[in-house]
């Protein structure tokens, strides 16, 4: 009997809630649904908030889930704009064309993929090849790299993550990840894990390195990366090195639509690419996009 009363109560509540949702005031608002990359979710959320403050007629909802999730959502038509931190895979493009989806891609920021370890780890610098070996599971102990005699504890993202794919392609040379990588649910969880784990190593988007005050999170060390043994080392925190492409693992962060963006979506993308939007990008720890990509964006907006 109690259950029955509870069920009826719940139904009533749902009814009231659904009535509230269809009130005329909210029906007139333009809705933009954004989904995808976990690396980009905070950045795009802040961009959306700034935009909504300026244009109260638009409501933007930003969801994470990973680049793969966003691209799948565009293919399946369940969002207006997808965030993705890697490029489309040929398979995904085929699937999109099969379904009549024509992706248009915009680069809205640049990320320097950051390799992080615990603050107490004595290692300062790794080469690209070393990072690859570590995540392929070939180097298993910090001792090999001149650190303490301790088993390396690997943290990574899940296979739907653009960061996962990007690292696999550009640093692991398209080889398998070690099965010992602990797959965490997003950048923030990797950071929490590495802050606690003295033997930990992980990879995150540069925007996640900072706390609210704009300083690098306590307990974290951001490694400098060398292209090869003889190359100079650069940190992803070094703006100049990232802008001049001296930092080896940087990548554009993308958004895409199905076909020509609608007026509302195009207006939002224009805001992201405006000097004001790009200033927010830098404030959040990411990097502005260069002229070539900007020209490409302009073409895709038309």
């Amino acid at each position, binding site marked *: 009997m109690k259950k029955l009363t509870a069920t009826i109560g719940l139904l009533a509540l749902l009814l009231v809630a659904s009535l509230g949702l269809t009130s005329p005031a909210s029906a007139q608002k333009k809705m933009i649904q954004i989904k995808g990359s976990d690396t980009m979710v905070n950045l795009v959320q802040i961009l959306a908030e700034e935009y909504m403050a300026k244009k109260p007629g638009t409501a933007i909802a930003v969801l994470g889930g990973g680049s793969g999730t966003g691209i*799948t959502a565009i293919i399946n038509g369940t969002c207006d704009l997808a965030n993705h931190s890697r490029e489309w895979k040929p398979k995904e493009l085929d699937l999109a064309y099969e379904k009549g989806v024509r992706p248009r891609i915009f680069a809205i920021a640049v990320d320097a993929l950051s390799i992080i370890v615990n603050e107490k780890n004595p290692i300062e610098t790794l080469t690209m090849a070393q990072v690859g070996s570590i995540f392929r599971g070939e180097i298993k102990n910090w001792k090999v790299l001149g650190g303490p005699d301790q088993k390396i504890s*690997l943290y990574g993202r899940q296979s739907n993550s653009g960061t996962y794919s990007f690292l696999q392609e550009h640093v692991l040379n398209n080889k398998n990840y070690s099965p010992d990588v602990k797959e965490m649910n997003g950048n923030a969880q990797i950071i929490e*894990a590495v802050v606690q784990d003295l033997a930990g190593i992980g990879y995150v988007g540069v925007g996640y390195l900072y706390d609210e005050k704009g300083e690098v999170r306590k307990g974290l060390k951001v490694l400098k990366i060398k292209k090869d043994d003889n190359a100079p080392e650069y940190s992803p925190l070094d703006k100049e090195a990232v802008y001049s492409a001296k930092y080896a693992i940087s990548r554009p962060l993308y958004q895409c639509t199905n076909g020509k963006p609608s007026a509302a979506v195009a207006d939002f993308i224009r805001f992201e690419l405006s000097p004001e939007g790009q200033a927010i990008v830098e404030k959040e720890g990411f990097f502005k996009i260069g002229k070539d990509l900007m020209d490409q964006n302009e073409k895709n907006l038309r």
Partner: protein
Amino acid sequence: MISVKKKGVLGDLKESLIQKIFQTSGLLAIIVLLGIFALLFYTAIPAFREVSLKEFLTSTRWDPTSPERPEYGLLSMLASTVMVTIGALLIAFPVGVAVAAYLSDVASPRVREIVKPVVELLAAIPSVVVGFIGITLVGPMIAKIFNLSHGLTALNGSLLLAIMALPTIISISEDSLNAVPISFVEASLALGANRWQTLVRVKIPAALSGIIASLMLGMGRAIGETMTVLMATGNARAFPQGFLQSVRTLTANIAIELGEVPYYTTHYYALFAIGLVLFIMTFFVNLTADVILEKQKRKLQ
């Protein structure tokens, strides 16, 4: 004599209508179950066009998005699921039965009135909250005790699942202890046995099938639990080497990968095949529990 009101034609109609409604509801449960099974089966089968059943069941490598060669072996995750579940039951079963015995035999009515609702409340904690406790409290504790660099291990998952299986084990064990006829207890005490001997040698053996059923139902809960293990066990794909390593269970794997997988690909179908394996596992565990409970009922009648 109880007086029965005379019913008219309308009353008869009403009664048969209500009967029909109840009957349909009962049937509906069966139809839903069969429907889920059929859907799982239907969606899982295409996976085996590209993946051999042998690879699926005996390979330890699962890496469907590998740029080298996609691999679809379920064995590591199956072993992890079994390991985490057994670990949870090793912790929860003794504790659960002890609490049940305490509640049915020792506790004063006042204590029982407080403890029982608290135990039931334990079942109401959302699994994501339990998982959070695993990340922030239990995990770091495990790391400290065993001198590990991190606590995202199978043991962490087992401990948390034990907490989640406890309410099931306690309440069903207690029910079956209470169902032991008072005459058994009186006979035992009359023969000079003390309360401990009565509990251990008479009550628990008499209620044993119910207690075992509680274990099976707790197991069903532990096998199917997703969010908690997803958060607490680290989700490494390697074959489990021990309780102090990161493992990935079947449920966690589905939760991790189903959201991103392109629809109607081998990877997608393979995830449903994992779902089918899970369904069959929990189905048999629950079926066994039901059979045992039914036996117990008959034995005590």
